[in-house]
């Protein structure tokens, strides 16, 4: 009696197992068709000293988090200390008669330009492409950061080939993000020295909220260069109001004040919007 009840319970358990297996098979078939996996495989990751962190994150299925950590490390490599040094130096230059300010006869604008060229010469950050490709391969949809890195490579480091290479890979991995094409075009215009073409594209690019503030700075400088100080002031004001990083805010404010100081007409028009500090 006990044996027959046990065999009947075994039979119903086997039937349940079969039903579960069928359900799994049906759902697996549908899900694998509907969800195409779009993240690069583990063998495509960039091997750096943080490779174990990257793989560790992927082991628990955290591509976005791995890219976030890689971005923080990218910022630690490129960014803060140099920008702070640059800000301090530029502020000293702007303030005027300082011990290590601009030498007599040199305008603050020229002095800032020299400092910038000195601080950000190519070769200071030889691993920028490697570290930005690392982010791209961990999360190809972290678009804002890819644009930031590509812009830094092209405009700050003057490493246009590397920047275009990064954007080319980004386009292959996320073709739907059309702004990559916009940035490629503006970099190509820069390469050819076509300022007007570049301005038009950058004016289009800054309409989007994820446009890195660095592009706005570049656009502002270009507008100033081609004799459109009012437009430049508006761009700097916008950067000041929307940027998150303190050094970007202070840089935008400094440039805005400089434009206003050099163009009284602009100062009059934008005066009400000019921040008090």
């Amino acid at each position, binding site marked *: 009696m006990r044996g027959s009840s046990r065999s009947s319970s075994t039979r119903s358990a086997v039937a349940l197992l079969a039903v579960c297996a069928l359900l799994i098979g049906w759902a697996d078939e549908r*899900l694998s068709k*509907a969800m195409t996996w779009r993240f690069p*495989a583990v063998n495509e990751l960039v091997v750096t000293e943080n490779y174990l962190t990257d793989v560790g994150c992927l082991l628990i299925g955290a591509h976005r988090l791995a890219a976030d950590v890689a971005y923080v490390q990218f910022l630690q490599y490129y960014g803060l200390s140099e920008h702070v040094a640059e800000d301090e130096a530029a502020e000293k230059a702007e303030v005027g008669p300082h011990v290590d300010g601009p030498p007599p006869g040199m305008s603050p604008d020229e002095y800032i330009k020299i400092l910038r060229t000195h601080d950000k010469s190519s070769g200071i950050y030889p691993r920028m492409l490697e570290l930005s490709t690392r982010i791209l391969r961990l999360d190809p949809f972290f678009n804002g950061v890819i644009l930031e890195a590509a812009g830094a490579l092209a405009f700050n480091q003057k490493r246009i080939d590397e920047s275009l290479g990064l954007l080319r890979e980004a386009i292959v991995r996320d073709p739907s993000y059309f702004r990559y094409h916009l940035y490629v075009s503006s970099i190509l215009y820069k390469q050819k020295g076509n300022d007007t073409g570049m301005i038009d594209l950058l004016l289009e690019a800054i309409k989007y909220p994820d446009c890195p503030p660095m592009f706005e700075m570049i656009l502002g400088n270009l507008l100033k260069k081609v004799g459109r100080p009012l437009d430049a002031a508006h761009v700097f004001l916008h950067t000041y109001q929307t940027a998150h990083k303190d050094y970007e805010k202070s840089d935008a404010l400094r440039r805005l004040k400089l434009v206003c100081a050099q163009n009284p007409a602009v100062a009059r028009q934008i005066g009400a919007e000019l921040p008090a500090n």
Partner: protein
Amino acid sequence: MSRLRSILAIARTTVIEQIRNRLYLVILFFGGLVLVAAALLGALAPGHRTRVIFDLGLVTLELFGLATAIFGAVSLVLQETESKTIYLILTRPVGRSTYILGRFLGLVVAVACTMAAMALFHVAVLMWDMEYFREFTAGWSFARIYPMLLLMSMGKMLITAAIALFFSLFATSQVSALVFTSSFWIAGHFGPEMKFLIDRGTAAGPSKALIKSVAALLPNFQYFNFRDMFQLPGFSGWSFTGTAAVYCLGYTGFFLVLSTLWFSRKEF
């Protein structure tokens, strides 16, 4: 009806046991601590602060939920067997399958409570700075997506808890059951890689058959990994949730039936 009542009674006791368990409280405490640390890490990425808190918070939630589920499932039956208190229940008119189902249900409710508590804390940390939060959620509905991401993480928990329970029944120690379950968890995140090896890989003959059978046995946790995919272009999460739920129930049911089958034949 009386069977359902027994299941609910066992589940209730399990929830109380889990919540009184020191390990459970420690896990919850550390989960909260990591969520606070997420805010600090977020400060290091000025332009993407909220994204970092969001991502790290969701991973923390899932990992600590997983820890609760695995430790809970592994100790549920093993501890009672070792301390012989299991006789007190099984000598009553309670079926072994009833016991397993009740225990499992109680564990799932306890894990859901942990995750819900951490999720509330996570949302509070995210909304701490509303300006950043609004900017981060521009273009997608947080109220619609966040519960979906939690549900998907919960789906992973269900499958993992069922697997842990199954391993705990024939494992000789808690450690071996923990190792087996964690291996399943990790391997489950390599579903797409295994599919790639099967579809386009150069493996042929026995090695291909081996990969196929391993892939069929392992749950593909990437189907539940909406927290990585929810912002991908063209991704419509809610349309997959129904099928993902069937997949989850299929796997959970499969391992629960196996556990009951094994447990009903176990000699004490």
